[in-house]
Structures are given as C-alpha cells and as structure tokens.
C-alpha cells in the first residue's frame, strides 16, 4: 500500500539558531541556488527525444496499485445551511450570481448531489466500482461555520465525517482526505480578505491541525488542498471562480504564495506532531496541462517555450514544494515585481513538504491556462508525458493521479460512449508511464464518483461515473457506461489481455493460396503506323503526315515489356496466386462483343500465358468497379443507360463473362465475377427501392455468369467462380449498450447477409421481396467458394433499429486507442477471425472461404513496419481460424502489388519511384516459404521444420526451365552445334550405309531431319 519509504528530510526540520547549523544552512542554500540557476530538472528532454512505445499497451499495473474515485465537498454535498453549516465563498458566490441571473444557468449547489444526506449511497457506488479508495474533501465551513478552528467544532459535522470514514474502513476502503477544495468559509473572506491575507497561513494550519487530530487515526493519505492554481488564477485573477476577486495582477501571486506557505506549515505540523503515531502521508494536489512544440517543430526556441509553459502552470507550485524551494526562474523573470519572494529560510522550510506527488489532470487546468500560458505552443492532452515530466523534473517522486477524466455534456446521459475512450486512453497513458517509463505511479483517481456542480459550468457539463438527474428530488445514482468500464479495468488491474491473444504455431496446407492483388494491369503497346512531323507550322505540335503509313512488324508478346517487369514483381513476393482485374471498357469499348478489342485480348492472353509459364496461378476479376474510373469500370454505353439500375446489365455482363471464359478460360484458375458489390451499390445514391434493384441485378449477373461457366466451361477448364464481398468487421462502440451490441448483427446482415444469403441460405434471406422465386432458384448455390475482402475493424453504434430499407440509422467510428494507419485504417487482426467466425456460424457451409484482399496503407517507402505487422498478425488470425475454430480458409491475398503514386498499399513503390521493394516483401516471402508459422526447433542454427510441398517441387522444376530460358543464346548455340554434329554424323553414316545398303538411304535422313526441326522449335518456344 505504501508508496514509498516514509520521508526522512533533515533539511526540512525547523531551523535552530546555532552557528554550525547556520553554516550548514548556507552551504545548502548555495547548493539550491546552483540548482535553481541551471534549471531544476531534465523535463525539457521530453520534447527533444520522443517517447517510444506509443501504441496502446497491453498489460497490468503493479500488484497493490491503488484504484480510486473522488469527489469534492462543495460539488456534491448540498445541504448548504443544514446542521449548523456556515456559508462558504462558493455559497456566497453562487447565491449572488443566482440573484443576478447569471450564466451559470441560475444554478446553485444548495442541494447539488445531496451527498451530505446520501453519503451511504456514495459509499455503495464506490463499492460497485470495486475501487480501493475514496477521495473526498472535508467542508471547512461545515466543521467551523466561521472558519475559526481554535473554537469548538460543529459536532454534527464531525460525526458525519467520522461516520463516513468508519464506514469506509469497515468496508476495507481507504479514505483519501482533502482538507480544502476551494470552499473557504465566507467569514474568513469577509474578515481577513481570504487568501490575500498572510494570516491565512496560520488560520489554515490550525484547521489542518484539528483535522489531523480528529480524523488522523484512520487516514493514511492527506491532501492539504486541491489544485490551488485554479483558486489563485480564477478566484483572484479572472474572477470566474469564487471569491471572484479581479483587478490586481499581483493578487494571484500573493494568493499562491500564501497557499504554498499554508500547505508547508500544515505539512510540518503533521510531520512533527502526527506522523510519529499516525504514520500517514501528506501532499498537495497540483493541476497540470501539457504542451507540444508549435507545429511539432522541436526547435530550441519552441522547446524552451514549452518548458516555460509547464513552469508557469504546474511548476509555479511544484518547484517550491517538490523542487528547489523557490519559484521557477522563468516565472520570476516574466513576473518580476508581481511575484513575492521566499526568504532563504522559507525556501528551506517549503522545500520537500510533500510525501508524494499528487497530480490532477482534467479539463479544468487546460481550460484555465490555454490562452494565457501556452506561449504559442500547442496544448495537448497527454497524461503520460506530464507524468514523465514530473519524474524528470522532481527527481522521480512517487505519484498519485488524484484527478483524471474529461467531461461530457449534460445531454449525454448514461450512455457516455466517448467518455469511455478518454478514460481508456488516460489510464493506458498511466500504464505506459509505469511500465515503459518507470514513473512511480501508485494510484489513480477516476473523477468523479457522481455528477455534481461543475463550478462555473453549473450542471451543464458532467464528470460523474454515476448519473444524477438534478430535476429529481431523489438524486438517484445511475451507473453510466464509464462506471461499468472502470469497474472492469479495476477488476483486471489494467488491460491484461488484448483481443488477439497469444500467437500459435502451425502451417498452411500445400493447396493454400498465398496471393497478391493488383487493380488492373494494362499497358497497350504503341503500334501507330502514322508518321509525324513536329513544329512544322511553328506552333510546337506534332502533326501526322498525310498519306504516309509505315510498315509495323507483327505483334508479339515480347512487345509488352511491362508484362515482364510486372510479373517479376509478383515473382519477388513468392506468391503462388496473382489476382488482377480485367478492364471491361478496354475489352468492349462499345459495350458489346462486336466491338471487342483484339489488342486488349492479346495483351491479357500474353499476361496470362506468361503467368502460366512462371507457374503462377491466375485469379481474374471480370468486373472491378473503381471510383478511379469515370464510368465505374463499365463500358460507357452501359454506364450511360443507368448502369446496374438497368436490368439489361445482367445480359450484358453475362455476354462479357462468356467472352472472357472463351478467350482466357484455359489460362485462368479462379474467376471473380464482381468485386465488392456491397460497396458498388453505395455509388447509386438513390432511394432504398432503387438500391434494392441494383442489388438484384448484381446478384443475378453473378448467378448468370456462374451458371454459364458451370454449364459450358467447367468440364473443360475446371476453374472456380465466385464474387468478392467487402467484409470488414464491426464491434459495438459501447459494449455496455444493448443497441450497440445489436447493431453488430444488423450491420453484418446488411453488409454480408444481403449478398451471401441468397446463395447459401434456403429461406428467409432479406431479398425475398425483390428476388422472384425462379430467380431465387438461379441464385441458390451459384458460388464455388466464399470470397471476402477484409481490411479493418470499426465500431458501430445504432440509435434506431436497422431495417433493410433504412440503413442509415447507425454510425461508424474507430477506437482511438487502436493502432491505425495514416489513412485511419485500424490494425485489429482479431476482427478478421471474427468475420470468419460470423460467416461460418451463419452458413455452416462446406465451401471454403478465401480472403481475396487484405492489406494496409503505410507511409514508409522502404521500412513499412505497419504493413509487416499487419501481414504477420492477420495471417496469424487466419491460422487460428483454421486450427482453433475449424474454419476452412483457403487463401490469403494481400492488397496490393504496387503503389500507384506515393507510398500507399503497395509491396513495391510506384514505377515513378523505380518499383523498389519494401521490407514487407521479404516478410511475406518468408511466411510463404515456411507456409505460415512453423514450430521452430530450439537450435537457432537449424531451420524451421518445413514439410515439402508438391508446389515447391513444381517451382523447382520451373526454376530449372527459367535457368534454361535465361541462357537462351548458349542453348541455341549448343543445339546448333548438336544439329551440325548430328548432320555430319548422319552424312557419314549415310555414306557408309549408301555404300553397303543403297535402298535404305532415304528414310534415315528423313528421321534425322525431323529431329532437328523439333529441337529448334523447342528452343524458340518458351520465350515470348
């Protein structure tokens, strides 16, 4: 439980006036002076060297980490004048503004959350969360109505807090008690002028002494005051907070000076009088913001300004107490004349008066200081960096996060989805600070327990884990979804498991498709017979010479230099399958078979022949709609007549498919008819009925194409035919909200079910209204395998129940704690396994599932670490789906082969960037050669146990023929020599034979001649 050893601070004991002590003090002073001059710590390095491991961290907090939740008295207690309580400055302030009809929204905290009466419900709420401590503050004017702690206390108030503390102790909950959370007794404000009066140091320490004496037996953690910075800045500077004093720029500094000294005095009192028998610890909670250099440029000037910004806010209080004993020198310089000075004795006396560092990181401090203390730098919300800064500036103290959360608007209510992600992020940043940066954080306080009075925002913003309807007299506490989330984090002591789980070992079978995808390779060869003349008329243009036509040589596959280069890239990835799309408008410029472009056909035949020669299986997409194409990838006549809205598209597509089967079928192993019809329909931005028509036409077009292949081509060509569906996974945005959980199933039905059900399910598919009975029979079973394009996982939430006609009732978002690419694609490998599981559960079908496209964008032009991680982790999930879930996954195709322009999804940079391979090529190649994740033997020298495959043997054979092909001239020469030798031998033999048997001469020559022709032909054949 203890955050560290009890403080032993010789320099902090009261100073006695004897000569040798004086000299000791002097040397100490000099030491402090030196330290102050050269800056107190090493916090600046944070902006110069970025922190590592910024991704969401899986792991738990150290054993004994303290989870807690907090409130403050004024915000929650209410009962402002009950049982002899005096008015506080905040009572006075809110009442005055209420009378004036002020912007707080005519709100006072007279009842607030009614915690004075309902304190037992609060304790119950703390228990609901499973927290180990409850941080609350004592109401000074409740204990002493006039603030004078030398007089008798209010016995009812004392009993109230004693009851609360007793109850907590009885339940095994630790009370963390704050003496002062801004609610100063009004009479002290009126009689002494509040914190502007140095007399307050004594008045406060008297109050502290009373509290230590009265409650200290049961309290291990004392906080003297909460975020005094805001009291000084807003209470005595801008006047936004009570007491609302404005006007004198020196006031905040005088107030801060007195607050620091009052704290120090109280600490010394505890240290001397109470610590020996109470064994508690005392600190002060300091609020912080965070800044990053302007535009991310960590220049020396910007770094200096960032440091200055931190020193002006948290450093103002932390440097005297946790650092040198004096104000930061940057603050002294910038506020010369305004900022009071500590005497040398005071510096020694103030320094080190905190037994741990108590940090508040919420919206209040950044909101208060972002306009005045940013120094042109960028404000950021990064709790981890604040913790590391504190570690480096103040010699690695033990730290309690005493307040952490953001806020929600009052309208959010109980389902506070966004707040969950802020909580998740802040807690994970603490975990990173603990695990990665070794900051000694020993506790975390979620803020706050219940909705309450949010100071100058009244009840318009909420920070509670429990919702309160302030119009209801009962003030019922309802756990928000953040309360459920926090309860889970507390129970797990952090984030012990990620969704992915442990990696497994295992290999994919020999017939598993390792593939790579490319959009539409096409590069027509220049075969223009015209002759041109440049700049003839001086206008700088090329013009053909009329009447001249050049003779061009007959076309050959070797004309397509691009094919060779392109296939070289495919080969470098080591994939067994290559998937690409045909260009429909290129093949059918006028949309029908009569316009078929023979050049385009020849190009694709060349490409496919070359692939076959290299032993690479071709997976060909007939129709690959893309927004790159102005006609959505279809010939313009079809596009102009309404595209897929028009029923004639079914026929047109069937004709096109038949043509492709005829022309290329012998060279194609897998056909994909249509790519991602579920994305294509979104380009038809029309009413639901029209969209259903598009869906129907797409389904029928595929079914027609499948049936044609099945009836006329399958026996001869034996390929598989399917269509791909875009199958990203979704998780409920808020797992604690039922409608979000239901949205997952509705979303998947709309995305996948709508297209797969008609083929794989008997009844009850969502299209029964739009697809007629005989058509339904045509669809049923018209699918050889299930093809899924999976890229990422999103979060889904739905306010209205989803229907097939109305699908805009839900929204999508990302979990911001997920690692994501520049384009915002989240790396969530487990989502792939869940999609596979969903498909398996729904269809219980024997057809195998192939991941026909998967990949991620990465900005790196060479070392694409994100893509490497993506490929490894997503392939792991496929293996898990196969091995652990028994799902027959037949292939894994990475999108895509090559970038188009800049660094994007490609394994290779674009041809403008010389088609350079990125590091992921090697990673993928290795995974393929090992066929997954084989068990590695203990000995690092021996290679992993890889079972040989026929495929590998075939590749070996192919490697041999490649070797032969590369030495073509040598081979040709060899064959010529052989032929010559044979001819010579033949002539000799013939002449010998002629001499002996003249009648057999003719036949022998013929045979030899045939053999020679055959050999020449073979040597010429393999090369295009």
């Amino acid at each position, binding site marked *: 439980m203890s955050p560290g050893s009890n403080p032993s601070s010789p320099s902090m004991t009261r100073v006695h006036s004897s000569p040798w002590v004086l000299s000791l003090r002097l040397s100490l002073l000099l030491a402090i002076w030196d330290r102050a001059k050269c800056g107190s710590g090493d916090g600046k390095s944070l902006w110069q060297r970025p922190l590592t491991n910024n991704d969401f961290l899986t792991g738990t907090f150290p054993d004994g980490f303290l989870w807690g939740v907090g409130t403050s008295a004024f915000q929650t207690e209410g009962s402002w004048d009950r049982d002899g309580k005096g008015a506080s400055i905040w009572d006075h302030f809110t009442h005055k503004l209420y009378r004036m009809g002020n912007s707080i929204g005519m709100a006072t905290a007279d009842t607030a959350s009614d915690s004075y009466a309902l304190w037992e419900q609060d304790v119950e709420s703390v228990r609901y969360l499973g927290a180990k401590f409850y941080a609350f503050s004592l109401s000074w004017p409740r204990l002493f109505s006039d603030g004078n702690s030398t007089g008798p206390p209010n016995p009812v108030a004392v009993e109230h807090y004693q009851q609360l503390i007793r109850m907590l102790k009885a339940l095994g909950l630790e009370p963390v008690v704050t003496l002062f959370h801004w609610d100063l007794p009004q009479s002290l404000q009126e009689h002494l002028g509040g914190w502007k009066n140095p007399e307050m140091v004594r008045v406060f320490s008297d109050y502290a002494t009373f509290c230590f004496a009265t409650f200290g037996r049961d309290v291990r953690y004392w906080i003297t005051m909460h975020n005094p910075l805001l009291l000084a800045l807003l209470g005595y500077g801008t006047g936004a907070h009570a007491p609302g004093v404005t006007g004198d720029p020196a006031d905040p500094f005088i107030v801060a000076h007195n607050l620091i000294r009052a704290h120090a005095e109280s600490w010394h009192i505890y240290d001397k009088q109470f610590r020996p028998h109470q064994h508690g610890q005392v600190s002060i909670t300091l609020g912080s913001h965070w800044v990053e250099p302007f535009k991310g440029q960590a220049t020396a000037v910007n770094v200096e300004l960032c440091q200055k910004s931190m020193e002006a806010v948290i450093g103002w209080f932390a440097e005297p107490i946790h650092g040198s004993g004096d104000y930061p020198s940057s603050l002294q310089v910038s506020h010369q004349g305004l900022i009071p000075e500590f005497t040398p004795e005071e510096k020694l006396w103030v320094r080190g008066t905190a037994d741990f560092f108590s940090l508040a990181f919420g919206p209040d401090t950044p909101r208060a200081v972002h306009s005045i203390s940013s120094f042109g730098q960028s404000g950021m919300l990064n709790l981890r960096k604040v913790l590391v800064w504190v570690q480096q500036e103040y010699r690695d103290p033990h730290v309690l996060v005493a307040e952490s959360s953001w806020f929600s608007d009052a309208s959010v209510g109980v389902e506070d989805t966004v707040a969950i*992600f802020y909580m998740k992020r802040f807690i994970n940043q603490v975990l990173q600070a603990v695990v990665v940066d070794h900051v000694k954080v020993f506790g975390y306080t979620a803020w706050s327990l219940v909705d309450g009075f949010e100071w100058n925002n009244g009840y318009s913003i909420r920070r509670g884990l429990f919702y309160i309807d302030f119009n209801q007299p009962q003030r019922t506490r309802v756990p928000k979804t953040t309360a459920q989330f926090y309860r889970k984090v507390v129970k797990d002591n952090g984030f012990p498991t990620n969704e992915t789980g442990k990696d497994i070992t295992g290999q994919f079978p020999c017939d598993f498709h390792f593939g790579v995808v490319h959009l539409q390779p096409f590069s027509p060869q220049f075969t223009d017979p015209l002759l041109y003349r440049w700049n003839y008329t001086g206008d700088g243009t090329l013009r053909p010479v009329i009447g001249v036509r050049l003779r061009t040589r007959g076309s050959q596959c070797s004309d397509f230099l691009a094919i060779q280069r392109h296939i070289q890239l495919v080969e470098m990835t080591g994939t067994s399958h290559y998937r690409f799309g045909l260009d429909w408008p290129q093949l059918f410029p006028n949309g029908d078979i009569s316009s078929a472009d023979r050049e385009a056909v020849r190009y694709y035949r060349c490409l496919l022949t070359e692939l076959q020669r290299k032993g690479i299986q071709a997976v060909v997409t007939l129709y690959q709609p893309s927004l790159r194409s102005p006609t959505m990838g279809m010939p313009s006549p079809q596009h102009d007549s309404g595209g897929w809205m028009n029923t004639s598209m079914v026929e047109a597509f069937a004709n096109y498919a038949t043509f492709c089967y005829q022309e290329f079928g012998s060279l194609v192993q897998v056909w994909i008819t249509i790519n991602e019809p579920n994305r294509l329909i979104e380009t038809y931005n029309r009413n639901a009925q029209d969209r259903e028509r598009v869906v129907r036409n797409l389904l029928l077009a595929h079914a027609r194409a499948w049936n044609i292949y099945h009836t006329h081509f399958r026996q001869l060509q034996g390929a598989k035919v399917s269509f791909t569906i875009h199958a990203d996974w979704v998780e409920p945005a808020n797992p604690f909200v039922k409608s979000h959980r239901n949205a997952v199933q509705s979303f998947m039905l709309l995305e996948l079910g709508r297209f797969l059900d008609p083929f794989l399910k008997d009844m009850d598919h969502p299209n029964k209204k739009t697809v007629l009975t005989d058509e339904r029979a045509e669809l049923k079973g018209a699918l050889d395998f299930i093809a899924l394009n999976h890229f990422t996982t999103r979060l889904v939430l739905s306010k209205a129940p989803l229907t097939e006609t109305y699908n805009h009732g839900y*929204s*999508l978002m990302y979990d911001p704690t997920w690692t994501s690419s520049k384009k*915002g694609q989240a790396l969530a490998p487990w989502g792939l396994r869940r999609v596979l599981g969903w498909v398996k559960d729904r269809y219980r079908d024997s057809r195998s599932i192939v991941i026909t496209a998967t990949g991620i964008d990465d900005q790196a032009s060479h070392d694409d670490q994100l893509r490497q991680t993506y490929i490894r982790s997503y392939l792991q999930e496929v293996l898990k789906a196969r091995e652990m879930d028994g799902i027959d996954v037949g292939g894994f195709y990475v999108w895509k082969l090559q970038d188009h322009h800049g660094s994007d999804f490609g394994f290779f940079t674009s041809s403008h960037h010389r088609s350079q391979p990125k590091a992921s090529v090697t990673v993928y190649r290795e995974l393929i050669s090992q066929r997954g994740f084989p068990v590695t033997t203990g000995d690092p020298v021996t290679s992993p146990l890889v079972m040989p495959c026929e495929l590998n043997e075939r590749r070996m054979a192919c490697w041999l023929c490649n070797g032969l092909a590369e030495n073509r001239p040598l081979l040709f020469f060899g064959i010529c020599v052989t032929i010559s030798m044979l001819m010579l031998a033949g002539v000799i033999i013939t002449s010998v034979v002629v001499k002996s048997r003249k009648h057999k001469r003719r036949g022998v020559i013929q045979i030899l001649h045939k053999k020679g022709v055959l050999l020449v032909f073979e040597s010429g054949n393999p090369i295009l």
Partner: protein
Amino acid sequence: MTPVCCVEGVLELRSVRPGETVIRGVAASLFLCVNPAGHLRGQWHYTEEDCTFRELLVDSYTMFLSPHTSLPVSLRSKQSGKKRGHLHLSHFLPVKNPGLLIEEKDGQEPGIEDPDVNSEDPLGFGQMSQAHAIFSPSMHRKKKRRGLQ
C-alpha cells in the same frame, strides 16, 4: 511559407487541377489574373474563372494560356513587342521549391492543431461516419481524414 523561400522565389505556381495553375507574385502577394477582355492584371483575391491558367508544355518550357481567350500569356508590354514586329510570348521554367513542399506536408500532419479544450470531445474520438460511406481500398482512391472517410 518560410522567409527563405519567399526571398528566392519570384512567382509561386500552384497546380489546382491537372493542367491548371494559379500564379502569384511572391513579393506583391498578388494573383496573376486576366479580365474577360483579356488584359493581365494583379489581384488581391483569387477568382477561379479569371486566375486559373491552362498549362502547356512547349519545348521543355511552360506556357500559360489565358482562361478567357486561351491565348498564351506574354509578360512583355505591347510596345516592346511591337518594335520587333510581333508579340513575344513568355516561356516559363518552373522550379520545384523544396521549402514549400515541406511546409505543406507539415501542415497536413494530423493532431497538430490544438485540441479544443472547451469541447467534450477535444481529440475527436466520437467523430463518426455514416455507413453509406464505408471506405474500401479496392474501391476508393483517397480518404481524406479519419471520420470523414
């Protein structure tokens, strides 16, 4: 724009669409525009129909065609041209300014803008997209930013 690039550059050329360019004088901060009558002039404010030039690559140099008349831009005054009997057309040789490119890249870095501390969602965690705009890499070309998919 950094001061260094401004000192060295005379005209700033920005491509707004393939083949279409906006020209701005760096020192004067005026856009080069053509009024409907075909007269060149400098303008403080950019108007698309007057200040977008069509780019034509001639003999490794660039010529700019007026948005209204499609005639090539000449920076010589009419008098100096008339002396020689015909109008001289201006040929440009644009040079890439690495300073400018870096600046643009930095400006696009996400998360550089200050979070709005007065918002309940300063980091934009709750930015949502509608389901009819799901991004698929094999279908779509570009995605601007998270949430706007």
